[in-house]
C-alpha cells in the first residue's frame, strides 16, 4: 500500500459540503433558539418546561439514528470486512453517545418540574435508555483498547450488535409497558401539539440531523487520516527494518 508522505497529507477535514452543512447548523440553531424561547407557546400544564422538548426529542431520535448506523456499520464489517463501514460505525457511535447523554440529561432536567422526580429506577424507558448509553460507552472502551485493529473492530462490532437489540425496546417501551412507565407516549406520532410547537420540534430534528451529518463527515475523515497515519507508520517502520537488514547483510559480507 502506498501512503502519501506526511507533507502531502491533508491538514484539515473540511470541504465545501461540510462548510455548507456547518453554516446550515449555525443558522438552524439560531432559528431554533428564537422559536424555542420566544415563538412557541408555553404549555398549559408544564408552562415553560415544555421547551425542553425541542432538545430532548431530537436528541432521542438522533440517538436511535446514530446507533442504528453503528449497527449497520458493524454488520458490514463482520460481513464484508469493510474498513469504510467500520470507521462509519465508530464515528456514529461517538455521536450517538453524545446524543444519548443529552437525551438522559435533558429528560432528567425535564422530569423534575413535570414528574416531580429526576429519575425513577422502575421506569422502563429511563432504565433501558441508560443501559443503551452504558453499552455504547462499553463499545467505545473496546475501541480504545490497544492491539490488532481487525480484532478490535470485530469485538466492538459484536458489542454494537448486542446494544442494537436494546434499540427497539427503548423505542417501543412506552407502548409495551404503558402501565409501568411514567414516560408519556411518543410526542411526534401520538402527541397533540400546537402548530408552532410541532414546527419548532421538527426544526430541531432537522438541525440535529444536519449536525449529525456534518460531524460524521469530519469524524470519518479524521478516522480515515488516523488510520492512514498508522498504516504509513507501519510501512515506514518496515522500510527502516529492511534497510537495517540490508546494512547488516552488507557489513557481514565485508
Amino acid at each position, binding site marked *: 500500500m502506498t501512503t502519501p508522505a506526511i507533507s502531502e497529507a491533508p491538514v484539515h477535514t473540511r470541504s465545501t459540503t461540510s462548510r455548507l452543512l456547518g453554516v446550515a447548523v449555525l443558522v438552524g440553531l439560531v432559528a431554533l433558539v428564537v422559536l424555542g424561547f420566544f415563538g412557541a407557546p408555553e404549555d398549559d400544564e408544564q408552562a415553560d418546561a*415544555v421547551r425542553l422538548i425541542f432538545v430532548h426529542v431530537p436528541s432521542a431520535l438522533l440517538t436511535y439514528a446514530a446507533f442504528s448506523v453503528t449497527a449497520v456499520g458493524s454488520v458490514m464489517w463482520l460481513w464484508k470486512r469493510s474498513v469504510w463501514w467500520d470507521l462509519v460505525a465508530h464515528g456514529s457511535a461517538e455521536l450517538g453517545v453524545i446524543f444519548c447523554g443529552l437525551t438522559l440529561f435533558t429528560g432528567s432536567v425535564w422530569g423534575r418540574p413535570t414528574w416531580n422526580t429526576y429519575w425513577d429506577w*422502575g421506569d*422502563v424507558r429511563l432504565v433501558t435508555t441508560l443501559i443503551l448509553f452504558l453499552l455504547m460507552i462499553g463499545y467505545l472502551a473496546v475501541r480504545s483498547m490497544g492491539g490488532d485493529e481487525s480484532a478490535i473492530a470485530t469485538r466492538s462490532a459484536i458489542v454494537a450488535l448486542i446494544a442494537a437489540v436494546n434499540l427497539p425496546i427503548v423505542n417501543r417501551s412506552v407502548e409495551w409497558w404503558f402501565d409501568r412507565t411514567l414516560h408519556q407516549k411518543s410526542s411526534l406520532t401520538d402527541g397533540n401539539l*400546537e402548530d408552532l410547537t410541532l414546527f419548532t420540534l421538527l426544526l430541531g430534528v432537522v438541525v440535529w440531523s444536519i449536525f449529525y451529518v456534518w460531524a460524521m463527515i469530519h469524524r470519518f475523515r479524521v478516522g480515515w487520516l488516523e488510520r492512514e497515519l498508522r498504516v504509513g507508520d507501519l510501512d515506514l517502520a518496515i522500510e527502516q527494518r529492511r534497510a537495517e537488514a540490508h546494512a547488516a547483510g552488507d557489513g557481514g559480507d565485508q
Partner: protein
Amino acid sequence: MTDDLAPQQPRPARSPRRKILPAAIAISVLAAVVGLVWNLVGGSLFFYNANEAVERRAELGDERFTLQGSPVGCSITEGFQGDVPVVVFSVSFGGEAVDIVHFGDPADLFQPDVPVVLDGYWVQGDPGVVDRTPIADDGWYFASDRMRVKHDNDYINDDDYDERLAESEAAAEFASEACSA
C-alpha cells in the same frame, strides 16, 4: 533472506491493565444485559389503577404498592399535620375513587384531572384530617409519601383548556358527578 525483517525483541508480557480491561468490559456488558432483562421483567414502577387497587384491597393488605389515578378537583385540601405538609384528596380511575392522604409537599404540577402516581399503602379508618371531602368515603384511605405526575403527550396552549378537558376526559366527568353528589 536479507529482505526479511531482523529478529525482534521478545514481546513484553501483557500488562495486568491490558488483562483486566477486557474482563471489566465483558462483565459490564453482561451486567447491563442482566439489568435490562431484570428491569423489563419486573419493572418496579408497575402501578395499580384506582379501580384495580380497590378490587385487590384484601389481597394487597398493608403491602406497599403504587397507585395511579386522576385527582378529583373538589376533594383537594392542603394543610399540615404537625410540621409535615399533608395533602388530602381523592383520585378516580375506571369509575372507582380512592381517598388519599399524602404526607409531604405535592408535586409542582399536581392539579385536578392530571393523573398522579403515588407510593403508599392501604389504611383502614379515618385519617383524622378535618375539612376533607372524601369521594370514596368507604372507611379506607391510601397513605402516600411519594407523588409523581404522569402527564400526557398533549402540549397545548388553550385559554379554554380546563373547559376542554372537562368535556373530553372521563375522569373529569366522574369528578363532576362525584363532587355534585
